[in-house]
Every structure is written in structure tokens, then in C-alpha cells.
């Protein structure tokens, strides 16, 4: 519904291109993950996704409760064995400060890391990988994130996106040919999507790959920018437009994905970009000049590249929250060391209420993020497919929590926090990019809202259709829903540990309000909702908070069930987090429902006046 909307004739064509990317990202991700037989039927699809259902006003908690983390003893043992060596490597071999200072991670260090098996974590052993599952991989990413986010990006750009396309969609021949070298770190991979004129709007890329007349190969031309590992990678997953014959005989450009080797010829890269953070990670432009790609190096089908790109990103997305969890742990540890030692006004910093509040908030943010990481990874490991909204929400939440936690840590360090020596300033610089790449957070928020609303809108339309055509049962259930003030069809209160009952009631209230808000907005704005970014951003914020609450309560309940010695303490953190997050969610929903037209009008006109003016409009109070 929303994806067809942007193509409707009343919209200026500039809108068309601007929006196609985002809404078709939503649509293709939704399609790819709801891979059931219903795809062809007209009825909107049913899914067990918490997010999808919540947008319809339903609390479907199957994928949230019980907490899905489930590592058997063999997998735990493997993890246990690799944690020690990984930490040792990060402490003794890799030098984070030096990497930052020299803006490079030496190849010998990467080779050592490769020996550990860190570059082939998810690859099955038959292709020389470690055969870890997502939960194990998350723990590894968490540890790396605690020590060196730059190295984390090298690792992520290589295996979470660089060669993920081969792992997910590659043919048997492609896997056999490429995975062993990549998993063992003998070769490195990079993911090449972004171009000078195409970032968030990934569907608008201009690189082209044209098939040769004899069909034996494609010829790739184009330029990519900001490519992590771009300066030294040997194997690239490249996205480019391929002309595709339509049924009516015309041709249309569609994105396709290819495996490109540096050795094919015509592949060159620019110098390493000078960056704010993650300096150890190499970022470079890439140029493809008449690169001959064998036809057999197409990943998936021609024209499916956009879907491939979105699903690679979707599949690897939990890696960012995992690394963020580690980074937060580092900041918290540093904070504990400082506030328990530093005395001012005759007291240790830890004794001041304001300091305690900052610490408690850090703990809550870390706990919620950690809970999200193993919720996502656990669900993926148990075969859940429709997690794209949840993963996007976790990416936004985690990267922003980490930023705030690090910022608060620096604040509590005072002047020392500003100094290199504290290492916190480096972490802050490193963290900044996580809110931008792999989906800018603002755009991810729109993705969350639009994907959810698209799903809800379909169902709403279906309901309207059924009522129109005399569906008495539908009408009755809608009436009871409205008269009774809504019916979530599920409640977290019944699923949580007794110590979390009050918090669960707050969550339930937020979920109820969320469904109402979405419905109101859809009825009010109909297809026009797509342009209501003020409302969409707030709906996303509310969803992100709600999901984080649900996941936190589930994880804490799990801790009680498994009789962890910290369960009581965790209850306090969870209750505190829900207190704050439910307040935020409710307030975001209220603002979204209201729409605050006057405020929106001010936003629009103030911004426009200055942007049109090309500079500040106001006169300086000292008018000289």
C-alpha cells in the first residue's frame, strides 16, 4: 500500500525517486521474510512478528516470551574456549590506541585475528569457517566492541556484510570458490553499495553492469564511496543496475548483486579516508572501470540485488547492538573505577544523587541493549524470519544508548574524560558512526514506522473491505474493539516473573496506546502518512521503547527462571528501565496522536526561511 502510494500520479516525480528506496526497502524486506505460500493470495499476511502485530494493535508475544536464548552445552563450551584467546589477543596483540593514532590496523594483527577464526565465525566448517550460530557470534562481537570498535568494523564489513551475500544467496560453486579463503582471513571482503549520489536511498545507485552479447560476462562501470575494507579487500559484493527485459519488450534498470575480484582488472581504490573515529578501519572509494565479471558471479537472480542488499544488512544488523553492548560495558567499567575514587566537596562522586542517576541510567541502557542482542540472535537461531523491524529498532536503540552512555561516562570523568588517556574520547569518536552507517538512524526510524504501518494499513483496508461486503463478524469485532477501548489479544503481565508485574502492566498500557495511535494516524492521514515524518519518527520512538521494554522484561524473567544469582538486581534494573521507557513511549505517542499542527507549521516555515535565505535570518542583538 505504501509502496504503491509513492508511485501514485498525484505525486511529483522527485518524490517518486526519493521515496521508492525507503518504501520498497520496507516492502522487499517484508516480502523476503514472510516467505510463506500466502504471498500470492490477496489477503494480507499473518506473521508472528511482535512488531508487525503491534502496529495492528495486537500484542503477539510468541517471539518475545520466553526469552529465546538457547545455547546447548557444546556451543557454550566452544564459546567459553574462544573467549579467553580472543580477550588475550585484544589485550596483548591488538593495540587499540595505536590503531587509532596510526589510522591503520597492521596486516599482521589482522592475520593473527584471522588465525583465531574470527573472520569466519558464521561460515560452516565445510568451508573452513567456525560454524558458530548468531548467539555465539554476538558474544564475540560484544567482546571485540568492548576493546576496539575499529577492529569490529573491519570484522563486520568483512563477514557481516562483505561476504554475507555469498553465504546467504551464493550458489554451491560460489561458496566453494570464495568462502574458504574469506572465512580463514586469507582474503578480505567488502560490501559496495554506497555511491556519491546514493546513500540512504540505496535503490538509486548508478553503477551499471551490462551483460555481454554472448552472455558470458557482465561489464561493470561505476564508483563507490565510503567502502569499509575498500583499500585492501580482494573480494567485493558490488551492487549495480542491470538492464532487464520486461514482459512488454521494453528494458528497465534493476539492481543486481555481483561477486567481484580485485584481480578481474579495472578495480582501483582511493587513499584511506581521514575520519573522526574507527580510524583503524580502512574506508576508501572504489572505482570499477570496464570490469569483466563472469556471468557465474551474479549473486541470486538478475534484478534481485536490492532485496539481496537489504537482506544482507538485515541479517547482519544484530552485530551493531552486540558491539554497542561491549562498548557500553567498557564505559561503565571506567565509570565505576572513577566515581568510586574521585572525591569532591568532601564526598566520593558515587555518593551524589545525580551521579547515581547517571550510573543507573547507564546500567539500564546497557541491560536493555544486551537483552535485545540475544533476543534477536536467539530468535534468528531458532529460525524466526520476520525480524526486520525488530532488528532496525535494536540498531537505532543500541547505537544511541551507547552514545549517551559514553557521553555520560566522559561527563563523570570531568576534564579527565576529555583527555586521550581516559580512552573514553576515542570510544565516543568511534561510536558516532554507528548512528549513521548501515542505515542512518533517522532513516531506520522511518523504516520501522513505514514497514509496520504498511502491514497495519493492509489489514485495515481488508477490514474495511470485509465490512463493506457484509462481514458481520468483522464488524462486530471491530465494534467491540472500539467500544471496549481496544483488545490487545495478549498481555505481558501473564508472562513475566511476579516481581515484574507492575512493569508489565505499564508495558501493556503502552502497547494498547500504540495500536490506537497507529490506527488513528492511518485513518486520519491515509496514504498521506508517508509524508508525516513528525508523526512517523515519534511512532518509531514509541515502538523502539516498547520493544526494548518487552525484551528487557523477558530477559529478566529468564534470569529468574534460571535462578541466576543476579536475578533480584536485574529486577531492579528492569523495573527502572520500564519506568523511564514507558514514560517516554507514552509521551511520544501523545505527541504523535496530537500532531501539533502549529508546531509542525513553525518547524516547516522556520527551516524554510533560513534554508531559502542560505544563512541565518535573525539580526544579531548587537546590530552593527
Amino acid at each position, binding site marked *: 500500500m505504501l509502496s504503491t502510494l509513492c508511485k501514485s500520479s498525484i505525486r511529483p516525480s522527485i518524490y517518486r525517486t526519493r521515496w521508492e528506496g525507503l518504501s520498497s526497502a520496507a516492502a522487499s524486506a517484508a516480502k523476503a521474510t514472510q516467505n510463506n505460500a500466502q504471498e500470492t493470495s490477496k489477503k494480507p499476511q499473518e506473521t508472528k512478528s511482535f512488531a508487525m502485530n503491534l502496529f495492528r494493535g495486537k500484542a503477539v508475544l510468541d517471539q518475545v516470551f520466553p526469552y529465546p536464548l538457547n545455547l546447548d552445552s557444546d556451543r557454550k563450551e566452544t564459546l567459553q*574456549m574462544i573467549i579467553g*584467546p580472543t580477550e588475550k589477543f585484544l589485550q596483548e596483540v591488538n593495540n587499540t590506541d595505536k590503531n587509532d593514532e596510526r589510522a591503520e590496523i597492521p596486516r599482521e594483527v589482522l592475520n593473527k585475528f584471522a*588465525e583465531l*577464526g574470527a573472520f*569466519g565465525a558464521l561460515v560452516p566448517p565445510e568451508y573452513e569457517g567456525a560454524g558458530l550460530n548468531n548467539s555465539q557470534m554476538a558474544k564475540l562481537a560484544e567482546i571485540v566492541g568492548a576493546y576496539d570498535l575499529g577492529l569490529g568494523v573491519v570484522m563486520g564489513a568483512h563477514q557481516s556484510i562483505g561476504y554475507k551475500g555469498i553465504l546467504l544467496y551464493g550458489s554451491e560453486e560460489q561458496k566453494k570458490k570464495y568462502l574458504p579463503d574469506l572465512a580463514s582471513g586469507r582474503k578480505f571482503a567488502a560490501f559496495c553499495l554506497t555511491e556519491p549520489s546514493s546513500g540512504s536511498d540505496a535503490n538509486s545507485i548508478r553503477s551499471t553492469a551490462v551483460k555481454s552479447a554472448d552472455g558470458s560476462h557482465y561489464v561493470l562501470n561505476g564508483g563507490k564511496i565510503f567502502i569499509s575494507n575498500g583499500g585492501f579487500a580482494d573480494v567485493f559484493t558490488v551492487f549495480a543496475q542491470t538492464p532487464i527485459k520486461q514482459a512488454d519488450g521494453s528494458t528497465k534498470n534493476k539492481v543486481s548483486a555481483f561477486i567481484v575480484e580485485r584481480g578481474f582488472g579495472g578495480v582501483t581504490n582511493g587513499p584511506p579516508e581521514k575520519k573522526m573515529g574507527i580510524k583503524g578501519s580502512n574506508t576508501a572509494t572504489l572505482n570499477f572501470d570496464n570490469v569483466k565479471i563472469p556471468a557465474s558471479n551474479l549473486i541470486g537472480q538478475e534484478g534481485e540485488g536490492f532485496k539481496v542488499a537489504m537482506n544482507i544488512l538485515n541479517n547482519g544488523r544484530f552485530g551493531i547492538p552486540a558491539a554497542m553492548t561491549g562498548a557500553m560495558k567498557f564505559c561503565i567499567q571506567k565509570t565505576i573505577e572513577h566515581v568510586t575514587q574521585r572525591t569532591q566537596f568532601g564526598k566520593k562522586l558515587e555518593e551524589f544523587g545525580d551521579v547515581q542517576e547517571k550510573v543507573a541510567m547507564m546500567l539500564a541502557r546497557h541491560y536493555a541493549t544486551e537483552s535485545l542482542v540475544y533476543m534477536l540472535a536467539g530468535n534468528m537461531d531458532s529460525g524466526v524470519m520476520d525480524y526486520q523491524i525488530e532488528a532496525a529498532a535494536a540498531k537505532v536503540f543500541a547505537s544511541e544508548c551507547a552514545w549517551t552512555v559514553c557521553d555520560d561516562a566522559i561527563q563523570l570523568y570531568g576534564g579527565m574524560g576529555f583527555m586521550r588517556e581516559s580512552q573514553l574520547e576515542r570510544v565516543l569518536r568511534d561510536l558516532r558512526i554507528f548512528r549513521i552507517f548501515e542505515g542512518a538512524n533517522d532513516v531506520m526510524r522511518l523504516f520501522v514506522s513505514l514497514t509496520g504501518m504498511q502491514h497495519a494499513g493492509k489489514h485495515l483496508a481488508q477490514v474495511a473491505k470485509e465490512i463493506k461486503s457484509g462481514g458481520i463478524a468483522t464488524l462486530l469485532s471491530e465494534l467491540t474493539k472500539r467500544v471496549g477501548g481496544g483488545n490487545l489479544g495478549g498481555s505481558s503481565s501473564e508472562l513475566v516473573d511476579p516481581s515484574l508485574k507492575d512493569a508489565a502492566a505499564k508495558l501493556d498500557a503502552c502497547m494498547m496506546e500504540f495500536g490506537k495511535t497507529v490506527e488513528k494516524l492511518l485513518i486520519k492521514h491515509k496514504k498521506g502518512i508517508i509524508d508525516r515524518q513528525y508523526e512517523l519518527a515519534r511512532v518509531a520512538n514509541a515502538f523502539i521503547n516498547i520493544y526494548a521494554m518487552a525484551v528487557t522484561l523477558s530477559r529478566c524473567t529468564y534470569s529468574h527462571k534460571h535462578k541466576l544469582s543476579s536475578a533480584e538486581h536485574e529486577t531492579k534494573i528492569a523495573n527502572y528501565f520500564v519506568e523511564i521507557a514507558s514514560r517516554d513511549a507514552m509521551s511520544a505517542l501523545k505527541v504523535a496522536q496530537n500532531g501539533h499542527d502549529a508546531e509542525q507549521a513553525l518547524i516547516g516555515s522556520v527551516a524554510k526561511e533560513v534554508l531559502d535565505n542560505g544563512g541565518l535570518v535573525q539580526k544579531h542583538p548587537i546590530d552593527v
Partner: protein
Amino acid sequence: MSLRILVGVKRVVDFAVKVRVKPDKTGVVTDGVQHSMNPFDEIALEEAVKMKEKKLASEVVAFTLGGPKSQETLRNAMAKGADKAIHVEIPEGDVAKVEPLHVAQAIQKVVEKEKFDVVFVGKQAIDDDASQTGPLLAGLLDWPQALYASKVEDGGSGTLKVTREIDGGLDTIKVKLPAVLSADLRLNEPRYATLPNIMKAKKKPLDKIAAKDLGIDLTPQTKILEVAEPPVRKAGGFVADVPELVQKLKEKGFVKG
């Protein structure tokens, strides 16, 4: 040479863990505490694996006497290069009662069953610091011993040349095989277990033998009366200069005059 080497490895509380005494003072808390392979055993294992890589040895077998959880230590040993492992199993609850003599007796039984040319152990375990397993075993087997090895080389004609760190210098000895060796800290730097090798180790054989089937007597010979935290160190103070330091030392009676 193509020696068969048996390496004793013990599961101990990880060296980085801050050990806590149980409230009832019968021992230290081990539940939910990070454990790993005794670092000196890691060194012994590394040397054995190196000897195999140098074609001095043909096979490296890891051995442990311990509870079900010590299987993890054996797998780790195989991930680091041991070819197979022998687990003499006792109930997890009995682990704290095991003494060096029991381990030495168990190894003796294994060595009597299968032919080994070298038994390599750590010079001590970092939990009880007993340093007894090696010498007791040498006594039981009536084999020569080369303890606290800091260098191991082929000595020619069925011997090993072993360098030992002793007070004031190095002691180089030649031992006739079969022999018992124990590893000192500076013998080598143990390698990491890597993910690919951890995966391969899952397929290596791990023989389990119940302690009672070996016919050894595990009755403890010692009784633990009490385990206590070391007394807390009192906070120190700063002195401005050397004369003040000397003054303070005199006041406390540490320096005469």
C-alpha cells in the same frame, strides 16, 4: 625420535579470578567462577606439541583426573594440539579432595597400560601450589625426573637435554627416557586455541575411564581444617622524602639506630 608424550592438565580457577572463600571456610567458591587450564600445564602441553612439530614426538595425549566439567579442559588441550585425551572421571563433588598422590597413581596406571616415553606436567597447579605430582609420579614409576624445565632438547641416544632454572643460574641435565618432566614458566609461550582448531578438536577421541575402574584409592590423606582470607592489608601512607621515610621506619622499629 618419535616419543609418545602424556601431558597432565588440570582444571583450575582462572588466574584472573579474584578468589573468594566460602562462608563455611571449607574451601573457595568455585560455582559460577571462570575456570581454565592450569597455566603451567598449558606450558607443558605447548612444549609437547612443539616437540611433535619438531618431529621429536609422534603423539601427544592429554590426561586429567577430574569431574565431568574437566572435559572442557581436555577439549581445550586437543584444540591446542593434543591428539587425543584420557579422562579419569570422578564426581564433581569430589574434585576438591583430590591430592597429588591420587593424580600420580592414576597416571601410573595409565602409563602401565599404554607405553609412554615422557610424562610432562606443570611444575605446580595454581590452586593448591603443591608441586608434588611430578616427583611423586617419578617415584612411583621409578623413572628419572627433570623438574622445572626451562628448555627441552634432544640429548641423543634416547635422552633429553633439559635446562632447569635454579637459584643463581641454570642447571643442564640429561635424562634417560622414559622420564617425568615438569614445566617452568619460561619454557615457552603457549599458543591460543583457535576456532578452527576448537572445531577440529570436537572430532578427536576422548577416552573416559571411571576412577574406580583403574583400581586406585582416592581416600584423602589430609584434612582441611579451615580456609581463610589473607588478612586485609592496612592502608599505607605517603612520605615526602627519604629522611622522613627513615624516620618513620625508625619509629616503627624496622630500622635500628
